[in-house]
């Protein structure tokens, strides 16, 4: 059992949990993830390690299905049955380079740890964070501290620049020579945004989020196609060369279980409707 020491809502449908998990926290590096299983019948779901300090790890997630809604109910003092990690390969960190770290939506969660690590290795770090609107923006202060320069954008202009992270990225790579770029967010955002750096051939990393089970390379649920080859995102990634990734395949494989996910979510909500336990819902 792993105790939750902090639980907070950061934005609309975006939550933060800080969990005591020394085996993960002490060895976690930028770019890695963990897997949680909340209770005995729970699913194993992967979440990026957003911060690690001492014995504590932080995860930030968006509520989209049964498990993330269940996680969002946890309060400080509650516990999580299983936390496994750190999983996946850490980000490859260059030295004395100029790097851009782009986060979209809940993907911003992964950015500060990468930006800090890059800066710690003597790189100049430019951050770009984008969200649909101001209510969905997260970790702005943390990113401002972690980066040499930070750009903030919203799709509707309610905060920072009006527009997409991709637009800012285009300007940044025009303005100065950039060596490497990280783009982290929903698959479609990663696809569109990483296309920006392709003409210049700038090395660009994306963190892929296929459906996983074990997270240790034993099942192949997480397989992704990179440069025409099948890779297991949990052990060969999750970060891959963006310009080699088959994003359409990734998005398709994220939609293997739409009916099941709907059923599980309805059931989750039904169990929280305030009826007597065991009551039947029509």
């Amino acid at each position, binding site marked *: 059992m792993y105790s939750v020491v902090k639980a907070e809502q950061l934005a609309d449908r975006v939550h933060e949990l800080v969990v005591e998990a020394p*085996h*993960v926290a002490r*060895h976690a590096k930028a770019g*890695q993830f963990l897997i949680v*299983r909340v209770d005995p*019948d*729970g*699913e*194993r779901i992967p979440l990026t390690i957003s911060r690690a300090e001492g014995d504590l790890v932080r995860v930030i997630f968006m509520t989209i299905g*049964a*498990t993330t809604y269940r996680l969002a109910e946890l309060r400080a003092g509650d516990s999580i*049955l*299983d*936390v*496994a*990690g*750190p*999983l996946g390969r850490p980000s490859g960190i260059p030295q004395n380079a100029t790097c851009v770290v782009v986060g979209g939506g809940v993907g911003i969660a992964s950015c500060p740890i990468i930006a800090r690590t890059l800066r710690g290795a003597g790189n100049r770090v430019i951050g770009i964070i984008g969200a649909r609107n101001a209510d969905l923006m997260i970790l702005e202060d943390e990113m401002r501290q972690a980066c040499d320069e930070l750009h903030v954008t919203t799709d509707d202009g309610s905060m920072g620049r009006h527009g997409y992270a991709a637009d800012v990225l285009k300007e940044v790579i025009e303005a100065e020579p950039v060596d490497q770029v990280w783009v982290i967010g929903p698959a479609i955002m990663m696809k569109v945004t990483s296309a920006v750096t392709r003409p210049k051939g700038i090395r660009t990393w994306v963190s892929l989020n296929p459906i996983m*089970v*074990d997270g*240790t*390379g*034993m*099942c*192949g*649920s997480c*397989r992704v*196609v990179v440069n025409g080859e*099948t890779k297991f995102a949990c*052990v060969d990634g999750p970060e891959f060369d963006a310009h080699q990734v088959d994003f359409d*395949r990734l998005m*398709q*494989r994220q*939609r*293997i*279980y739409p009916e*099941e*996910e709907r*059923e*599980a979510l309805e*059931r989750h909500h039904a169990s929280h409707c305030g009826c007597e336990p065991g009551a039947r819902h029509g």
Partner: protein
Amino acid sequence: MPLIAGVSRGRDMAERASTVRVHDFGEVDLGLSPDQAQAEADRCLQCKKPACVTGCPVGVDIPAFVLAIAEGRFGEARTGILEANLLPAVCGRVCPQETQCEGACVLSGKDRAINIGALERFAADLGGLEGEAPVARAPATGRRVAVVGSGPAGLTAAAELARRGHAVTLYESLHEPGGVLLYGIPEFRLPKAVVREEIERVLALGVELRTNMLVGQSLPVEELLAYDAVFIATGAGLPSFMGIPGEEVNGVYSANEFLTRVNLMHADRFPDSGTPVKRGSRVVVTGGGNVAMDAARVARRLGARVSLVYRRREEDLPARREEVRHAREEGVEFMTCAAPVRILGEPCVTGVECVQMEMCALDESGRPAPRECEGSSFVIDADTVIQAIGTSPNPLLVRLLPGAETGRKGNLVVDEDGRTSIPRVYAGGDIATGAATVILAMGAGKRAAAAIDADLRSGIAP
């Protein structure tokens, strides 16, 4: 529970009728009654030089426990087995006895071998852990040993090392120990309650279990190597895919994924359990080994029509005869001399294109080599495809070990006693042999534990 007496061939255990069992995950084999067990045990010749024991990788004193059963001393039979084997209820159910102890039985040529597996299971199942004398432990040696992986190899090594007085920490990356016993072999062949009970026995020896620890990451290699000795038993869990077009479309599983979803994550109980699985209405399983049989039988229980596609002939199926029989009884359709060449459908599987194979000259395995018949392609409709064409040693920890000698399959190279090329690091089970069997993994764990103990005591390992 309805039985079909006709299927039980005297010495055999009763089985649940296929028409009934295919609807649930209850155990297929029901075990022997005390009368049946005693009658079977009575047939044992009590050889002076028992060949069966030489056929047992962990060296169970088979004639002694069989005699105890024959004489009705059931508790003693169990205690006797536990001396050599701490997982008898598992072994009694899943060992390929026909190629181990029973294959060596002198009666196997003449009459028929003693059904040692069923007798082992009978003795093991009697009573629970209660009333069982705790296994004796040697005084503490003050030495610390890490065991990585809690499948049969790791469990056996951990138990043997703990018995010898060493402080053992058993690391497992999943949330529960057991390895393939838990996530691979289905409930209807090996109930998880049985596995858990036997693992309790190992842990009761004072073994410290640490789950959710992916060694190499949760425990860095430097910290692992700080133990006085290390036993690596990380198994052969890396699934192979055939490499045919269409493998990435939705609805294509490795057998490992399909079985893990059901056995470990209980997707058969979705949505009571949170993990889903595609139940499929038409499932194609590719492969002909035990894993393919398990995947096919699980898919049948989830309600699908199941075809198993195998490229050689029926008689070449590498699975145990008994498993093939069970699968057939449960309605799995066998399509032999056929090989999948392409998976059809986008975004979801709609079918599998196969070609007919003809059998040619014998290849190095002594079986006729299959060759594609030209123009013989045909399509099987399917909404789910499960590939059970093999697994290879888990590369994750192996590639982090400095100076580890590896073999062709990516396995760790070890000597007779499980020593790797790295001092104080031992390995055994599927990580060293490639995919093999539970009892071979246990034998390897036992031999390595003895070597670790000897090396620690003689000072070879400090």
